[in-house]
């Protein structure tokens, strides 16, 4: 895919893609999506399948919705910038009847601690909750 040299974003409607006006729903059930803003107790957590995703994951994997998000309650976080991910998660697991947890993270080093945090949170809830971990690999040059 070659980016057009003469890409002019301000020409009206010439580069509005059809999807921009699509009415298809993302099927988000609960708001907020961010883990640090999400409530500890919520009716949507009852018998829910949680999806804990790194912030960058949906931006890095276009079929994210069909692949991961469908039928699950997403909670997004960034292990690099967020505080107390484990505490918040433990509280959510302790106070609600969670059926399963899916973790989606990136292959980059900043996501490295996320698996451990989620596993600790699941263990501290003492309830047997199945945990699935998926890693998204991105082929982009690291310009940190």
């Amino acid at each position, binding site marked *: 895919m070659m980016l057009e040299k003469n890409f002019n974003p301000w020409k009206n409607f010439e580069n509005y893609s059809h*999807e921009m006006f699509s009415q298809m729903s*993302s099927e988000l059930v609960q708001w907020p999506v961010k883990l640090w803003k999400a*409530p500890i107790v919520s009716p949507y957590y009852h018998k829910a399948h949680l999806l804990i995703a790194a912030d*960058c994951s949906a931006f890095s994997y276009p079929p994210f919705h069909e692949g991961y998000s469908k039928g699950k309650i997403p909670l997004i976080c960034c292990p690099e910038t967020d505080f107390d991910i484990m505490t918040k998660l433990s509280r959510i697991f302790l106070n609600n009847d969670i059926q399963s947890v899916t973790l989606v993270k990136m292959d980059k080093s900043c996501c490295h601690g996320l698996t451990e945090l989620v596993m600790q949170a699941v263990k501290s809830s003492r309830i047997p909750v199945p945990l699935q971990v998926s890693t998204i690999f991105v082929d982009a040059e690291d310009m940190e």
Partner: protein
Amino acid sequence: MENFRPWDAPDTFGKVALHPSALQAHLEQWPLKLSRVSSVSPYFHRSHLLIAADCTAYSCLYFHQAVLKHRLLTICCPDMEAERLSSKIMEIISANDILSIQIVRMDAPCCGKLADMIINAVMRSRKDIPIKITTVFAEGENVEGGSGEN
């Protein structure tokens, strides 16, 4: 990857996806997080920036096809990172040749500062950068407030 020399042609650097495939996101650079990305980067040179709130990809089904094409993506959470973000955005705009900025924000109040910050940064830099703002509406029920009741 033979003879990859990004500094030979800085005007077109980063504009070609290296291994295009159907599932590939239209991403050129990493990191995506605005607070982590380096202020001076060859990818910013003559680029069309897309600054998106974290929640937008999860709330917008066709994010990649609708807004991401041809633009350079960075994401942030304006509520959590407000102070760091404004200085970072100022650095990026003043140090690089940005052609345009598109802001994608949620309709939630916590995204309110995002557009303000970016517009202020562009005004202060005195550069002529067109800005477009897109708002994504969240359909989930708002259970914010901790108790699950509004």
